[in-house]
């Protein structure tokens, strides 16, 4: 009788503890920033696609700024994250490159220097002295590091060059800020601007591209270093094979990219050089 009660208690304890009761592994946590998170419906479909392929629960965690996502990665609150090339370089030792998107068939993108369409005069960032300039995110390459690097190359001090600067925390909002004239200029990701030119042409039409930067490695998807190898491989395989099925292709079309490659950290050497030059690290 005593033994029976003990067994009952053990069973009850097992049932009460879901970790022990269910053999299901913990969900994979994927961090997203603005890059694509404005399209909630699309990312939701992407998440279900991942769950379906991985046969495992996947959670998307959306944050406004790159630093928040980086903090969560470092605190191991995320397993994977789609971040910018700049924080990838900045926190190089704390993340593991998982995949690099292909844009126009190549793993590169650029920064566009844009001004309001009504400004027909500006041909270079040098002419934007003493104006209002919109930055995207202090951990964005195209939206922050690139224009500052350009100023640095011109021998200017970025902190004093503009009359006023502000952060919008999103490339898309940066385009908006320029389009409505809140900012006199800004630098944005070519991928976001080009995508907006397709989905919201009236917005990009209110801006004008003054100059295009050299190519940089496309914003990568990274893994938290302690993610299990199996999970890393599965996720990487999933991303790389998205081009092979119709559903994956549709998602890629929605994200306005052509697919993923495993990529190499050397893609980001230029960013590291710029970062060193500007003295941010």
């Amino acid at each position: 009788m005593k033994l029976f009660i003990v067994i009952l208690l053990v069973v009850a304890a097992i049932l009460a503890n879901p970790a022990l009761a269910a053999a299901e592994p913990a969900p994979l946590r994927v961090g997203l920033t603005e890059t694509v998170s404005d399209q909630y419906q699309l990312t939701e479909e992407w998440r279900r696609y991942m769950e379906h392929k991985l046969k495992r629960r996947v959670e998307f965690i959306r944050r406004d700024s790159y630093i928040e996502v980086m903090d969560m990665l470092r605190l191991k609150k995320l397993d994977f994250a789609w971040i910018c090339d700049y924080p990838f370089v900045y926190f190089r030792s704390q993340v593991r490159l998982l995949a690099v998107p292909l844009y126009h068939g190549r793993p590169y993108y650029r920064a566009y220097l844009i001004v309001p369409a009504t400004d027909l005069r500006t041909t270079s960032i040098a002419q934007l002295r003493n104006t209002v300039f919109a930055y995207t995110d202090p951990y964005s390459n195209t939206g922050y590091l690139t224009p500052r690097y350009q100023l640095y190359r011109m021998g200017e001090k970025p902190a004093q060059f503009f009359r006023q600067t502000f952060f919008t925390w999103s490339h898309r909002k940066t385009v908006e800020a320029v389009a409505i004239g809140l900012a006199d200029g800004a630098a944005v990701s070519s991928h976001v601007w080009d995508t907006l030119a397709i989905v919201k042409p009236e917005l990009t039409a209110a801006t004008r591209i003054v100059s295009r930067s050299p190519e940089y490695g496309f914003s990568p998807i990274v893994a938290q270093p302690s993610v299990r190898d199996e999970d890393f491989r599965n996720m990487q395989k999933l991303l790389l094979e998205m081009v092979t099925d119709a559903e994956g292709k549709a998602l890629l079309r929605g994200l306005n990219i052509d697919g993923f490659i495993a990529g190499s950290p050397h893609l980001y050497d230029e960013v590291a050089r710029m970062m060193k030059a500007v003295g941010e690290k």
Partner: protein
Amino acid sequence: MNLLNLSFRYKTPLWGSILIVAATLAISASLMNQAYDDLKSDLLNSSANLSRTLAKTLFPTMMHEEVWRAFEIIRAPLHNGPDGSMVQPEMIFALDNRQRVFVSGQPKSLPLSADIRQFGEEYARLADRIVASPEPDAAIIEFSGSRHIYVAVPVSEEGARLGTLVIVHSKDVFLARFKSVASRGAVIGLLVLTVLLPINWYWGQRIAVPLVQLARNIGSVAHGVPPELPLENYAYRDELGQLFEAYGLMVKTLQEKVLLEQGMIRSERLAAVGRLSAGIAHEINNPLGGMLIALDNFKRRGGHDERTLKTVDMIERGLSQIRDTVSAMLVEAKVKSREFTPQDVEDVDTLLSGEAYKRAVIIRITSDLAKPVALPTTLVRQILMNLLLNALQASEPSGTVYCSISHNAGKLVIETKNGGHAISEDVMSHLFEPFASGEKDGPGLGLWVTYQIVAQLGGQIAAESREGVTRFYVALPAGEIS
């Protein structure tokens, strides 16, 4: 022309209309004024509420200089609601403590960190006002002649003020809204007027038209008897109705009075003529009788030659004619005669049949007499003969002359009726005077004699000639023979 002297016909509806229009205008104006105030206070209240909420949300963004977040906050109300919504602000902007633009909803016209004073005099006045009197709560700022209303609220927390949030409303939107309210009011006002004015006009006419008729007719009293007013002109029992009734009564009395006067004058004249003619007749009759007797004696004596006798005969015939004429004028009612019997009616019919036949006129006499009536038959027969002969003479060939004789309630009533020549009004007024007929047929003494007989018998005689029918009416007081 003095408006106060206008006819009631115009004055009553006119004054009524003026009062209605004035009342409608006054009510409309006060309602519109009220609507204007309500609209404005609604607008400003909701705007003040909005500004407080925005200012509270804006505080951290200003503190952290998060321009984009601030822009997103102030942009929301600018794109809310349908176009033309009254509370839709035209512009929202936030100023820092040095009155420089921290963020604005229209950065192209109000760029960041620019001093607001440089964008026009109105903004400069606004900035001065904000500096001069930093209100602790939302302040409504309105400059005379300005197209805008400003709602300024401090962006502050626990006494720390970072700047000022300003919501700009265009009066145009507000006025457009007010105009739509006002035009709706105007349409309703016009509808009220289109209903009330015709009612007022009709009502005014309804009162005024009878009053005007009354006034006009009363005005003609001085010139004679005013015409009667049909009572249906005003069929109500109010004061005006009573006035109509009184007027009707007055007209009737006046008419009776006039008729009475006319009758009196006529009968007095006839009496005078009667006395005169009777006097003259007596005066003539006496010597005439002597002359005729003398001539008779003269002829009887004999021995006169042919010529003398011829002359005497001629004189005798002339004197006889004078006697006949005079005796015709000398009506003697007190002659001794038997009473009038139904047989006399038949006699008259027979006597007239020859004349009727000659003129191809039919005579219809109806009589309800069953017994003799206590009236001298000679005189009654003369009355009947005179009236019927006149009727025969006036009738067209193949016409009919009617005569009715009735005895009732102590009265013998004779009525004759004929067509043909009507009696002219001129003749009618002297009908019973001697030689009134213009001497076309006979000496014109028939009706005069008839009148004299009727008058002496204490009866009444009347005549009328209307629409081609001439009637005579004679009533004689007569008892039955027991």
